[in-house]
């Protein structure tokens, strides 16, 4: 069974890196891309072009995004009873204390920094895979929002 992961990321370079990393690590991951916050919400609510979108098992969310930034997306998701059980991982270059604190206040499930080198990035994606997609027990799809 494929694992549905939503990556909310505006940088094509980062999108590709994430795709490359998952390709090497776990081929059963199905990576969906939203390039800004508005598109992310449309995907999650299965509106417009995304009416047939699956409910993601995990969301990787960048903070600095056009139109609607990651903090707003996080607030919407965690304030929505049907979406708040989706584990949401902040994946950003920001090391600012204020961003870290704010993210956890908004109920982010964890906060990760993007490393500079590919090796380090790949190893981070591997950790995400090993923990969030392997060891962690997630609610069964279709039961989570009941």
């Amino acid at each position: 069974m494929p694992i549905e992961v939503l990556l909310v990321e505006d940088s094509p370079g980062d999108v590709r890196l994430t795709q490359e990393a998952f390709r090497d690590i776990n081929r059963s991951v199905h990576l969906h891309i939203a390039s800004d916050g508005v598109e992310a919400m449309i995907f999650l609510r299965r509106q417009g072009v995304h009416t047939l979108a699956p409910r993601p098992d995990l969301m990787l969310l960048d903070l600095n995004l056009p139109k609607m930034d990651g903090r707003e997306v996080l607030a919407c998701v965690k304030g929505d009873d049907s979406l708040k059980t989706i584990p949401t991982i902040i994946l950003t270059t920001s090391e600012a204390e204020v961003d870290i604190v704010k993210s956890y206040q908004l109920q982010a499930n964890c906060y990760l920094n993007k490393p500079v080198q590919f090796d380090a990035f790949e190893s981070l994606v591997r950790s995400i895979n090993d923990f969030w997609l392997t060891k962690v027990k997630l609610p069964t799809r279709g039961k989570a929002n009941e």
Partner: protein
Amino acid sequence: MATMQDISVRNAAEKNLAQMEGKYRGLLEAAPDAMVVVNQGGEIVLLNVQAEKQFGYRRDELIGQKVKNIIPEGFAERLRADGLRSVEDALAQQIGTGIELTGRRRDGTEFPIEIMLSPLESSEGILVTAAIRNISVRRDAEKHLAQMEGKYRGLLEAAPDAMVVVNQRGEIVLLNVQAEKQFGYHRDELVGQQVKNIIPEGFAERLLADALRSAEDALAQQIGTGIELTGRRKNGSHFPIEIMLSPLESAEGILVTAAVRDITKRKKAEAHLLQKVEELNRSNEELEQFAYIASHDLQEPLRMVASYTQLLSKRYTGRLDSDADEFISFAMDGASRMQRLINDLLAYSRVGTKPMDLLDTSSEEALEQALINLRGAVAESGAIVTHDRLPTVLADEMQLVHLFQNLVGNAIKYQGPGIPRVHISVSKNDESKWVFSIRDNGLGIDSQYFEKIFGIFQRLHKREEFAGTGVGLAICKKIIERHGGSITVESQPGHGSTFRFALAGTK
């Protein structure tokens, strides 16, 4: 004949006296001044006790005598009619005005007097009442002032500042040319005027006695200290002044000499300096902000370059030709060096932008933490690091760890062959600050580079010899400066180096 005349005058005088005795005696005697009544012949017909006292005669020695005996000049003449005026007119001209003359006592001594004349009608015709005041005290005071003027005038005029001498009633008694110029008044317009006219606030108040202090004490409190006030010119414009007060003893009591300096230029310079300092601070802050933002934003594109060259290397090394492998390796090396530079620049700008937490900090614990962070380098080099017992100091703990880590790290890094030895010692200086010394047995530094090594991105070695971005000592310098100290180095090539910095102890 002369005797006959005398007798007739005396008789007439006696008759007058008898007539007037009842009328005026009481009035005359009540007057505070000497009073002498004279007829138009210039002969004294009446006088009071004060007149007897003042001139040293008994009453009967003066009655009927010429008034010239006691006021030799200027009085009798004034009473005479001449071709141009009648007696009444002559007298009328003098009435009520104070005339300054000289009185002569019985013993021949003279003294200054002021007389006031008034007419008195009698059966004999118009008599003249003269109120005579001894003004020798006033004259003395005037003379004293004139003397003082003479003495001090030269001094006052030689002074570069405006000088104003003021009495305890706040009246200006003396001033110099500079004061005239500075306040735009002519001397005559100021002498005798309240000093408040030219220094509206803060000066006159300082001279007054109050319930808590005498005039002398009030003045003593102000002597010698520069007081910044505002001066007012004749045209109403204001300007900043500094006044210095000093006491001046005189017959009138203590006077105050005020040296008044126009400090417009100084005030402007001060304001200018303050503005420049603010500008400099702002520009420094902006620069630090800029360094932070720039280094932070540079990381984004760098991540792409570094990540993709690495991905390229991982996927394609050995699958293209050997040139391609070399190019990829140079690109990777450049990207990782740039990453270190940016990280160090970020670290450097963080030292300047992060708020400091100055607390009592154990420098020994800070050093131990630094040595834990340096574990790898210490183990690899086999370095022997020793230290004295280190004190508690006032410092930001994180920054102190950073400081030790950079300095001990450098001491281990810049070594020739052999085992690095590093010793950290401490002593107290004359300002009772703790002076830390980090001594090594390393390569040493030529004295011409002592300043350069603390600059950002300054390096003395080729990259192949020693890695590094040249930011470490710049960070050390900034940390120490933020703690209010300075860092110095003492070294000789081949004989090791000693870095020193001072920190305040605990309160």
